[in-house]
């Protein structure tokens, strides 16, 4: 018997330090999709080649938006709720698909609470009052079948990767990202996420207007950078108009160069 669950690995510009408590290691931070509990692993492992792959190609970008102490009745877990924006409905559907598939394999899933997207950060906090919510971008680029091995350790038994919505690239003088999206609007949202990975507070400064071209994306990003720089300083100064949107398969890609 193994204690298993399916979850999305969470990557973020995590704070260097947290208040006292049992802190989860960075590599173990995740968003649980389906919790199986103590079960026989073999049937699932045998069935993994038929895993119902999600239809989305790119990893998911979200933002922490609320500090949670769970469960509400006897809180001993500190977690960040994740605002998945337009990805939430997609993920809920995928979670339902997973549940149906797991039930078809003979697993009984007892947890019927509504899906609450969150990432656990710590257990047994010394004091709830010491905790604050950092507003962070979080990306989920891999689904794992995790085994909980105790003492806040999770071992990946299998994984399925997505193309990251953005990846930092080598650039001699400045900072560069390969940004991806299925639409121009999503390209803009993911570019915002890339910049928020460098400097999380910037997310609050981006305008919410729709964009239809690369020029509009760059201009919108620069409006956010200018506001952030004016109000609290920003570690980069501008996004350049370098490059063009490339169409590859079903995706749009853009090399974003950020002036530091």
């Amino acid at each position, binding site marked *: 018997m193994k204690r298993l669950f399916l979850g999305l690995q969470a990557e973020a510009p995590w704070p260097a330090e947290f208040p006292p408590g049992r802190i989860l290691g960075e590599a173990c931070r995740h968003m649980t999709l389906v919790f199986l509990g103590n079960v026989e692993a073999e049937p699932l492992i045998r069935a993994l080649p038929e895993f119902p792959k999600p239809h989305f190609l790119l990893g998911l970008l979200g933002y922490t938006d609320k500090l949670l102490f769970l469960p509400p009745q006897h809180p001993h877990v500190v977690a960040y709720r994740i605002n998945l924006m337009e990805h939430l409905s997609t993920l809920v559907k995928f979670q339902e698909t997973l549940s149906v598939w797991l039930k078809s394999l003979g697993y009984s899933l007892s947890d019927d609470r509504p899906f609450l997207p969150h990432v656990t950060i710590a257990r047994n906090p010394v004091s709830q009052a010491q905790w604050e919510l950092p507003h962070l971008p979080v990306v989920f680029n891999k689904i794992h079948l995790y085994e909980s091995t105790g003492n806040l350790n999770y071992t990946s038994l299998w994984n399925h990767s997505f193309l990251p919505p953005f990846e930092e690239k*080598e650039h001699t*003088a400045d*900072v560069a990202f390969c940004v991806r999206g299925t639409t121009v609007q999503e390209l803009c949202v993911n570019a915002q996420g890339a910049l928020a990975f460098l400097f999380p507070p910037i997310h609050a400064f981006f305008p919410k207007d729709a964009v239809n071209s690369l020029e509009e994306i760059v*201009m919108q990003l620069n409006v956010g950078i200018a506001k952030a720089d*004016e109000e609290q*300083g920003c570690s980069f*100064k501008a996004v350049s*108009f*370098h490059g063009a949107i490339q169409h590859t398969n079903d995706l749009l890609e853009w090399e974003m160069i950020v002036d*530091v």
Partner: protein
Amino acid sequence: MYNLKKIKPATYELPQEAGMLVPGLIIATEAIIAEGDFEKPLDQVRRVAYLPGIVGYSIAMPDIHWGYGFPIGGVAATDAETGVISPGGVGYDINCGVRLALLDRPFKSFTTKEKDTLLQSIFKHVPSGVGQGFKNTKKLSDSDYKELIAKGALWSIEQGYGLEVDLDFMESRGFIEGGELHAVSQEARSRGSNQLGSIGSGNHFVEIGEVETLFLPEMAKAWGVSQGQTYILIHSGSRGFGHQVCQDNLNDFLKQGYAKDLPDKQLVAAPIHSPAGRHYFSAMAAAANYAFNNRQRILHGVRMSFREVFQTSPEEIRLLYDVCHNIAKFENHLVDGHLRRLCVHRKGATRAFGVGAQELNPLFQQTGQPVLVPGDMGRASHLMVGKGNALTWCSSCHGAGRAKSRMQSMKSWNNKDPIRYMQEQGVAVKANSPRTIAEEMPDAYKNVDTVVDAVQEAGLAAKVARLKPALVIKG
């Protein structure tokens, strides 16, 4: 290699291809070309050659590296009547530049404790790092901006930040004519309102050390430079003010369709005499004057720190020179034997006027102008003298040039202590951000000694002195 043809010592021609209006000119030695990755920067040199009205060559200095639009370390001159002006040819940090000041006391005479106190004091007087400015001082008003733009560095001197004699030792006396506040957006004014006198982040710094080696003792003597002397090197620009000016004008140029026939939108350029071109120049000049004032106030902060620690008077810290390395300037140059007015874009390149140049002060007219070449915070910086090289429109390199990306530097110093490493090399470093230190470590840069050797071999400037850093404040 790279289809380059050697035409002179350390000087290569990049042949003109379809779309290029002029050939490229690369200043480099064989060793620099062999060691570096020049593919992308040379592509940018080719693209700059598409600019309407470009004259002579699209030029790259030996510290060239990949930028966006123009390469960093790029020079391009356009005809002042029929050519274009390109905000991307100046860069975001308008009038980013360097100033060198000297104190006639041997650096070695300072105790470790005094040096540490000095570093702390400068850190207190000169804000550095992301968004750091003066939190409790009055923000710049529009009337302040008007004065700053109308007077250049003189404005800060009138406010008590420095000495009037400082002006004689600045490129263009610390003032670019033609700036207009109405050409500057409210966003730019807001971004710059509390940042005057601050270093900023990235590769900007204040560096203190000793004059280690003299290469031209007579020249050094004429400039009051001596071996063992204490030097102060300041590298900063126009902060958020200049960045916003650049951004605003790039946006406007693009909206007006000026990128239509260019291979890279970041090269967008408008005719100099078009309303857009004139508007940009007015705003750029305003930002350039902001930068002169910024460096003037940083030097003032450094002078205050020296006074606190060593009781030196401000006059004892003598400004040798202040140079711009991100700027477009109108200059007269000989083209095919005829004097022609050009708009010289220097993006990551320094003006290097030689003997007799009219704009220089009487001392530098006799010697050529000082050319300041910061290296990295471990190895060295250099002081050179301009030779007035006609092929490059009297330009020279501006630094060592990066060898590694910021990402590579971060990775290579992950889980190590770069501050301790620098201490072991005899350099005390202080910064607001540990990431900045990791990104700016000496191994992230080319060896500045090889860069200045190339410049000297090509006849752009000659080495006067090598400067060895010991105290460094980074953003």
